[in-house]
Structures are given as C-alpha cells and as structure tokens.
C-alpha cells in the first residue's frame, strides 16, 4: 500500500487494553476477548483510513509519515490520559504454565499464541491469494492506478487493507495480553522489531514475513542464550542490516 503505519505499535497497545478491560470488567479471558479485540481494531483501522489516511494519500511521503506518527503520539497520550500510567496484567489466564517439548520448556500461553498466529497467518494468506477481494487488494497494493483502471474500487480496498491489518494486530494484542503487561508505551517495545521483521521478509510478502518472524525470534533467543543477553537485539539488527545491504528488497521481496 506504499504507506507505513507508524502507529502499529499503538494499535497493539489498544488491542491489549481491549483484552485487559474485557477481563477486568467482564471477566472474559483474553482468548474469549480475541474476537472483540479483532472487531475493535478492525473498526479502528477502518476509521483511521477514513478519518486520516485518505486525506494524506495523495500528499508527499513526509505528510504520510507524520500523519501516522502523530496518530501514534495521540493514541499513546490518550491511553495515558484515560487509563493512567499503571502497568496492568491479566491475572490467571486460562492458559498458564508450560509444556515440555523433550528437554525444552515452552510457556503454554506463548505456544498458544504462536499457534493462533499461525492460524491467523494461514487465514490471511488464503484470503489474499485465493479470493477475488484478496487479489484485488494485492493489485491495489502493487499499482493503485492500474487497479482502478481494472475497475477495482481502490478506496474500498485501502479501507479494507487498513481494517485487515489492524484486525491482525487485534489478534496479536489479545494473545499477548495473556502473558505480557499492558501500559500506554507497550507498543514501542514491539513496533521496532515488527518493522525489522517485515522489512527483513520483504514488504508486501505475507509468507516471507512469517519466515522472517521465525528467523528474528530464533536469532534473538540464541544470541541471548549463547552470546550475551544484553546484545541479543544488536544481533537481530545486525542481521537485518546485513540482509538489507545485500538485498534492499528484503529476503523474499519482489520490489
């Protein structure tokens, strides 16, 4: 779509708050709150497109960057204003504890989160590759004018893209809320790694992002375990730099 959402981390924060409040106010486990978070975030994405992005799409690149960046600051400050600065945690989610995979322990919430992320990925991939709307969406992403000439309602596709992208964050937020604390700045912790992952795989390539995600995760854990925990992110970013220097389009990127 040729536009990077710098408020992606803050969308994640909103999704986590949705899951947290569903638990705190209605006693809903994050797993049950997942559809709620997905719906809320899809609505947020749709509203962001219509309220903000649409108006800057034709503008210069800088305007687009600042628009989403401004949105990020607004959401973060808004969250602090409304919900305060406290760290909140969902106590005793349904999924807790760990499973032993041979000699390795894996946290059950993390395992469930990975499984759900895989399901979400398969769903998204199938939708993009196999349905007419999905193909139309990809066409719009590749060339907006050409897509419009083919009779695709690009405005609708953009809105759909934003709603879909945000809904995915909704899935992530609800799952993360099972084992991660929530506070207004939580998005920043994940956003940078998320951009690196997407750029490493190649923008616009969904399966590549999955592979890149696994690579980043493995590098992070092994660097922490075998080298020093203090530099585990340095290793991740080093790998990213090496890849984009050799292949600016990312590992599997086409453009």
């Amino acid at each position, binding site marked *: 779509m040729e536009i990077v959402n710098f408020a992606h981390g803050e969308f994640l924060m909103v999704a986590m708050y949705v899951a947290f409040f569903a638990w705190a106010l209605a006693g809903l486990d994050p797993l049950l709150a997942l559809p709620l978070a997905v719906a809320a975030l899809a609505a947020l994405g749709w509203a962001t497109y219509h309220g903000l992005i649409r108006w800057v799409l034709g503008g210069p690149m800088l305007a687009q960057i600042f628009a989403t960046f401004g949105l990020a600051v607004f959401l*973060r*400050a808004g969250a*602090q204003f409304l919900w*305060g*600065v*406290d*760290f*909140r*945690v969902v*106590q005793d989610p349904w999924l*807790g*504890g*760990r499973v032993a995979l041979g000699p390795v*322990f894996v*946290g*059950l*919430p*993390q395992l469930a989160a990975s499984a759900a992320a895989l399901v979400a990925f398969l769903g998204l991939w199938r939708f993009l590759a196999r349905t007419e709307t999905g193909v139309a969406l990809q066409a719009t992403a590749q060339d907006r004018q050409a897509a419009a000439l083919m009779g695709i309602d690009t405005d609708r596709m953009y809105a759909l893209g934003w709603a879909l992208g945000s809904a995915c964050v909704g899935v992530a937020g609800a799952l993360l809320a099972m*084992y*991660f*604390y929530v*506070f*207004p*700045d939580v998005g*920043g*912790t*994940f956003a940078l*790694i998320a951009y690196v992952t997407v750029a490493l795989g190649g923008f616009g390539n969904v399966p590549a992002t999955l592979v890149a995600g696994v690579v980043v995760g493995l590098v*992070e*854990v*092994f660097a*922490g*375990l075998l080298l*020093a*925990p*203090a530099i*585990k*992110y340095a290793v991740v970013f080093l790998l990213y730099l090496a890849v984009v220097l050799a292949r600016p389009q990312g590992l599997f990127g086409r453009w």
Partner: protein
Amino acid sequence: MSRLLAIVLALTLAVPALAAAQPREVVLGVVYPMSGPAAQAGVDNKAVFEIAAELANGTADLPFPFYQRLKGMPGLKGAKVRLIFADHQGKPDVGQAEAERLITQEKVTALVGSWHSAVTATMSQVAERHGVPFMNPESSSPGLTRRGFKWFFRTSPHDEHFTQVMFDFFRDFEKKRGVKLKTLGITYEDTLFGADSGKVMRELAKKHGYEVVLDIQYRAKSTSLQSEVQRLKGANPDVWMPTSYQTDAILFTRTMKELDYNPKMIMTQDAGHISPDFIAAAGKDAEGTMSRAPFSTDLIGKRPVAQALNALYSKRAGKDLYDFPARAFTGMMTLLDAINRAGSTAPAAIQKALIATSIPGDQLIMTWDGIKFDETGQNTLVKGIILQLLGGKYHTVYPFDVATRDVLYPVPAWKDRK
C-alpha cells in the same frame, strides 16, 4: 525643578530594584518520567511535590518543628514556591534538553530530579555547567556523587550503601538460621542504574566471599526474557539478585513461572520490584521477593511524621506513601530548607546553605539518622533496610530489631503454591 525630577526618577528606578532584591517567587524545575515505561514514578511523585510546595507556602501543615520552621518560607519573607514540572520520558537526552530549557528560559532557582540514574547524570551536567543547584532525591548509581560536581546533592543512599545492607543481611541471616548461602546469580538491566548496581554486587560478593555463578546484563525493554531465565535456571544460584525497572521485573516473574524456575532467595535492588504496579501485576507470583529500600510503608505507623504526611498523600494520590514519593519528599524538603536558610534565590547562597544542611533523623519520614552532606554532595546519614513481599505487601524483615515480620525462606516452589 530638575532636581525634583531627578529624585522622582531615582525613586521610580529604585523601587523595582528593591523589589527585585527580595524575590517574591521561588521557581523550581522538577523533572521526572511523566510518560513512558516509568511514568508511574513521576506521576506518584508529583502529588508529594505539590504537598511539599504547599507546606512551604503555608497552605498545608505538618505539625513537626522542622516543617513548622519552613512554613511560609520566613527566610525569604513569604516568597511563594512555584514548581514547574517537566517530563523526561526516561530518556537522558530529553532530560538534558529539559534541564537546559528550565535553566535558560524558565530561570529556575534549582532543579529536582529525576529518578533514572542515567537521566540524572545528563541533567546534572547541565546544572553544573550553569551553576544551578541540583537536588537528587533517589537515583542510586554510586558514580553520580563521584564526578567532583559542586552543585549536585543526593539525599538518598546509593547502591553501595544498599548492596552493603544486602550482604550484611546475608551474614546475619546465615548466622540466625544456620543456613549457608554460597552462590549468587546477578542480572541487571543495561542502563546506568543496572550497570553500576551489577558492578557493586560483583565487588561486594568478592569481598565477602560469595561466588557469582551467573552475571548477565539484559535489555531493559526486552519483549522476552526467556533466554535470561533459562540461564538462571541452569546456573541455579543460592540467591538471585536482579536489578530491574518495572517492565522487566514483571516480565521476569511471569517468565520464571512459565519456565518453572524456583530461586530460593530473591534479593532485588528496589526500583521495579518495589513499585506498586509490580506488586499488583505480579501479585502472588512475587511472594517472597526481597528488596533493599530506604523506606517501607509498614513503618508508617511507627513514625509520626510519616503518618501525618501519609494522611495528606493518600488523599491526593489514592494510594499509600511508599518508597518513591517518600524519598522525593525528603529531597524536596531538604532543598526548600536550604533555600529558606539561604534567604535568597542566589545559587551560591543556596549551595552554601545545602552544604550546611543538618536535619535530625526524627524529623524525617525515613528511618535515616538524618541529613548531612559530605564534600561530594552525598548524604552521609543514610540507612537501608530489607523488605520482603509477604501476602501482597512489603514488610520490613531486616535489621532484625526493627523487623515487622520473619524472613520467608526458602521461597516456595511454584508447584507448592496454591
């Protein structure tokens, strides 16, 4: 006629000059994390700073001699104290810019801040360059008072005092319970606070004959601490000694539970582990966590000054006084006392008054022996205590003579907890 004009002219010029000599306002810059990962510290401190300013302005009251003396700032003939709050977001560069702005544009008399050791370091450099007094109520990196600064004053103990208390505790505890603690695992976050704390722990462990079997520095803003906990579990030290801010403290506890790591004793370096958010978020999972501290909420009942302040604070902040606001208040009152004795907002006069500070321990809300600065600007009359989280609250467990509870040891394994 021309003489009369000259007199009138001289008078009109002289009147504002006289007024300027007697300041009507004392403007203080207060810089804390009001947003970002440690925002809670700044937001909770703001309430106590406002109370401090009201005490000085005579609109609030603490019925103890030291605070009565300050009421209405008699030394400055009733000048009003005005606080300008600024947010450094936990970032050293932002803190530096704010210090610059407050000094050059807002023309503050002194700066107070700023929780994070790394931010205090950059901010106090600006203050030193401009010759403006800097009051630091809580940053615990020992190096801060070893830079040869002339305008930097710290009321709180630093990590050497604190860490020494931990090792004193180990010694006395081993004697009392007949157990032997031999190995330590230290983990610390990667800013100035963690790095210095880790260094002090390493040194003291060597000095007191403990073996450090694991020594890791980690990213404070990690999204996962799996590998760190795996390594702890592998090394399995007798005591795990983390130095963490809020976010990483919460994540450590969650990850330990998931990976079934059971340290027998957890001795933490305050900060993240003592914040109410950590207690609320980690809940019963953090049972048995110990921390050094200069103050404990369960001592409020034993100290009349703390009790009186807590009555004001809890109404405003919606929570009881705890370590952060307690230290913030102590630092701010020390500064206000010095300004009052200086009788002026001239930096040199305040600096001189700060050096001459002598506040007796019974007037403090802390359990310290008092406040007196040495030539480096460090308060020499500090004392640390050891707390343990029991039943969702921190209780004083050491020194044994002021303890309100017995030490829970070993911390029950995850499988044995309800």
